């Protein structure tokens, strides 16, 4: 398991000890197309480091059904709700094709992070990078760059 964890982009620049600790909470997981990695409202006790395949992030909107707001793929992370109370998923994540990933037990990792501040800081730093990238992407999409901006 450690070999898989070590080479995932999320773990880049993490030290050996942190990789060991994260690996201790990790397991291999696969999802068939259409199956849910997590469902909105459920307990956020896991997060996923994607190794292959695509995952859609969606929210259910009354009258419109499930609306996909983003897709993520190999090298990306699904879920950070495991880090923040009340540890509840705020979206659905569904496999779009055959998905291979590393499932990490969030509760296990929280305990380790509390007792090992260097691991906690490393994890928060990594999650912050992911959050920042998603925030930047969201800002860009809010600009509606391809929208109908009449000029003449």
């Amino acid at each position, binding site marked *: 398991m450690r070999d898989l964890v070590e080479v995932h982009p999320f773990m880049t620049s993490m030290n050996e000890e942190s990789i060991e600790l994260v690996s201790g909470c990790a397991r291999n997981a696969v999802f068939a197309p259409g199956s849910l990695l997590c469902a909105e409202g459920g307990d956020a006790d896991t997060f996923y480091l994607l190794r292959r395949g*695509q995952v*859609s992030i969606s929210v259910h909107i009354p009258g*419109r*059904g499930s*609306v*996909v*707001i*983003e*897709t*993520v*793929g*190999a*090298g990306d992370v699904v879920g950070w709700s495991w880090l923040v109370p009340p540890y509840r998923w705020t979206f659905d994540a569904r496999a*779009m094709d055959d998905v291979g990933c590393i499932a990490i037990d969030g509760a296990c990792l929280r305990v380790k992070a509390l007792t090992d501040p260097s691991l906690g800081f490393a994890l928060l730093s990594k999650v912050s990078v992911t959050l920042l990238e998603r925030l930047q*992407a969201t800002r*860009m*999409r809010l*600009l*509606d*760059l*391809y*929208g*109908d*901006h*009449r*000029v*003449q």
Partner: protein
Amino acid sequence: MSSDRTLSMRPSSVAPRGNLNDLTPIVHRVVERIGETNDITTLVLEPLDAPSMTFRCGQFNMLSAFGVGEIAISMSSAPGEGTLRHSIRDVGAVSHALCQSRVGDLVGVRGPFGSDWLVESASVEADLDPRDTIVVAGGIGLAPLRGAVEELVRANERGGGRVFVLVGAREPSQIVFRADLDSWRARGAKVSLTVDLATPEWDGRVGLVTTLLADAGFDATNSRAMLCGPEVMMRFTARALVDLGMDPEGILVSLERNMQCGVGWCGHCQLGPFLLCRDGPVVPYAGLVSQLLTQRER
């Protein structure tokens, strides 16, 4: 490359000047009209009484809707295609008039103007560029790249470098040239699409076009890129490509300002020391251009 032209950008003070013939529109007839999306129309034009135009991929023409005005529109056909095509988005008075043209209507054409994507047909296989080419387009930005992609796919079929076409659009219905995208894919290009707003029937990628870069599969250290779309998109994409290891000198962007004369006389399309109608629209991202794109223009 087959050409000895380089990616360097000429300062406007030393670039050659146009002549009066460049200011005279040549009347063309609309011979075909293709509705690409709800607001993008492709016009296929033929000269009324003149030889067909020769041009290079990425250049533009000034199109006149008689009695309404004139705007700059890039060619969306490849030079070897045998037709002159322009794909126009209906965003203002002139573009609206052009989009409303019917088969048989007349439009004015001045050009071709400006720089190009440096994609040229190699007469012998040994001259084919072996590098990967990454083409990134946002929305209607695929139109000025369409001819270049066609040339690149042809070159790839003859042993040239691989072609990666990454396209972002607002929503699935705004993806242009779907038949071409399918054709390029079938002929060996890697084509990836993403949209900002997914519809229920869309089962593809959702997100920024930059998210397509990571798993596209190109070799960033031995490749070149051609970007066209909203400037912010091109900026972020260029930065992402540089972060992946691409040489900024190998990244070309297509810039647009208020092109009017087309020959560098009027100065309306100035960007810093450059006149984009003549020094552009296709320019290397490296150096001064990357700085100018982040500065507020006065």
